């Protein structure tokens, strides 16, 4: 029971798995790869939890009784609480994966690609086009605004001219 590298080796592996997942999420532009990498990240955390539940010489936390409540195994049972937490987490993780995949399918439908950088480029282009369209719209607006005084003046002139003939409102 002396402290050793083997004693915390498991925790290093969990860090390694998490970092592999994190690297995949950051470095890979492919959305499917990112979803898979997220799964790896989650498994790292699961490993951390389950490793903590182990007790030296313990067995699975399912009591087996032989007769009259006598225990077949008296030794320690592993801690069941992390198992419970992770059990539900795994099922929730597959739900998360499913929703992510559905979103990816919709993204493919909208953009035609599932590479994050290409999606960014398309978004950027869209934004530029939108900006250009807005500029054009603004320019037209300004032109209209500049034209306004002249129009008003013309209208006023028309109205002034209209005084000569009361009753005829233009």
């Amino acid at each position, binding site marked *: *029971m002396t*402290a050793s590298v*083997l*004693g915390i*080796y*498991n925790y290093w*592996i969990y*860090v390694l*798995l*998490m*970092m*592999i997942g*994190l*690297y995949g999420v*950051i*470095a*890979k*532009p*492919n959305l499917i*790869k990112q979803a*898979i990498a997220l*799964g*790896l990240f989650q498994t790292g955390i699961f490993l951390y939890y*389950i*490793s903590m*539940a182990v*007790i*030296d*010489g*313990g067995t*699975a*936390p*399912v*009591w087996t009784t032989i007769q009259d409540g*006598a*225990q077949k195994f*008296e*030794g*320690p049972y592993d*801690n*069941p*609480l992390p*198992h*419970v937490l992770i*059990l*539900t987490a795994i*099922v*929730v*993780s*597959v*739900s998360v994966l*499913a*929703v992510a*995949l*559905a979103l*990816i*399918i919709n993204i*493919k439908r909208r953009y035609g690609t*599932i*590479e994050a950088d290409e999606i960014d480029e398309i978004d950027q282009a869209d934004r530029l086009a939108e900006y250009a369209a807005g500029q054009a719209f603004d320019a037209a607006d300004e032109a209209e605004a500049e034209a306004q005084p002249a129009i008003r003046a013309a209208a006023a002139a028309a109205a002034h001219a209209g005084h000569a003939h009361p009753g005829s409102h233009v």
Partner: protein
Amino acid sequence: MTTIVIIDTLLLLLVTATAIAIIEVRSLYASAMLTSVYSLLMALVWVNMHSMDVAFTEAAVGGGISTILLIGTLVHLPREEKKLKKRLHAPAAITCALAGAALIYGTLDMPNFGDPMAPIHHYRVPEMMSQTVGFINQTKGKQPAPEGFDPYAYRTFNGAVQGIPKDPTDTAWRETSIIAQRGIMVPQVLTPGHEPHHEAGHHLHPPDDFNGHIPNSVTSLLAGYRGYDTMFETTVIFTAGVSLIMLLRRPRREGEAQKSAPMTDQVILRVVTKMSIPFILLFGLYVITHGELGPGGGFQGGVVLACGFILFALVFGRPALYRVLPPRVTDVLTGVGVLIYSGTGAACLFFGGKFLDYSALNAASPGEGEALGMTLVEYGVGITVSMVMLTIFNQLAEEQSK
């Protein structure tokens, strides 16, 4: 213990290699396949650490369902990711190295792998385990806490003992350690009349016989102690099914033909599938029902049921599945599962207990009431999980017909 450590080390090496391969391989199809291998290996790690229920779930969910979902998605997508200019993404690598180093530095203070004195075995868990422990020791009588027992004591990487003021070679320490290894985790809870952590409203269950009648403590914690969490996790899965329907389902036009590509031309496969599907469904129901006695339960059994239906759809085509189990039935059953779960809780209220306090279901014998309530709850979870998984598969597959 050494056997566990040796196998654990080798398995984790294999797992890590697979993980790196999953990230690095360019074909997404191969990546999905390796995900299945990864999950199976991970499930072996869980079995090695005696976590049967988690292994069950991981094998069924990770090895089965998620691989099938990933492959189902790849139908519309390019099968290879595009070639990256640089092999190594430097900022990501630096970020990961720094974060990893910080986390590894954090692990140096962790208690040893398998240390019975680790805080996790002494702080919160024993409070609900105590009743079990009390049950275990019913025949032998309860043992009083030893002098100077500190539930927070544990050993760090350096071998220093934290939380215990005494010399580790002290006999009291050894005695404590033996008692911890015996499974008696928090002796003070066992002392009658002295309940240190029992604030008002803290306990959801009567302390006398909770867990005593359910051999699988994982299931009893899942449905009892964490009953509320499990209920809302079932709701999360339900929500995922609903989101899939909202994201992908399109109204079908009348008379529109369902395209499909059944594998019925392979005679051996067809016959074996036809033979094995009743067995798979029966096994799924067995896993759900058997959840209190051994590893298994609603989540695992539900996934197995879904796997059976998915196998049917794979070999005989989705239209055949729709004739057996129309989408309308699937949709309704998805909600019915959650309803069964919350309905069981409401029934407990009706019988005079608290919400999800199953012992109220049978006043004469609280233990049987708990067993009944947990079975009902497991069936609710199983129905929801299987139907949501089937809905997800159906939606992803329907997408291929367009």
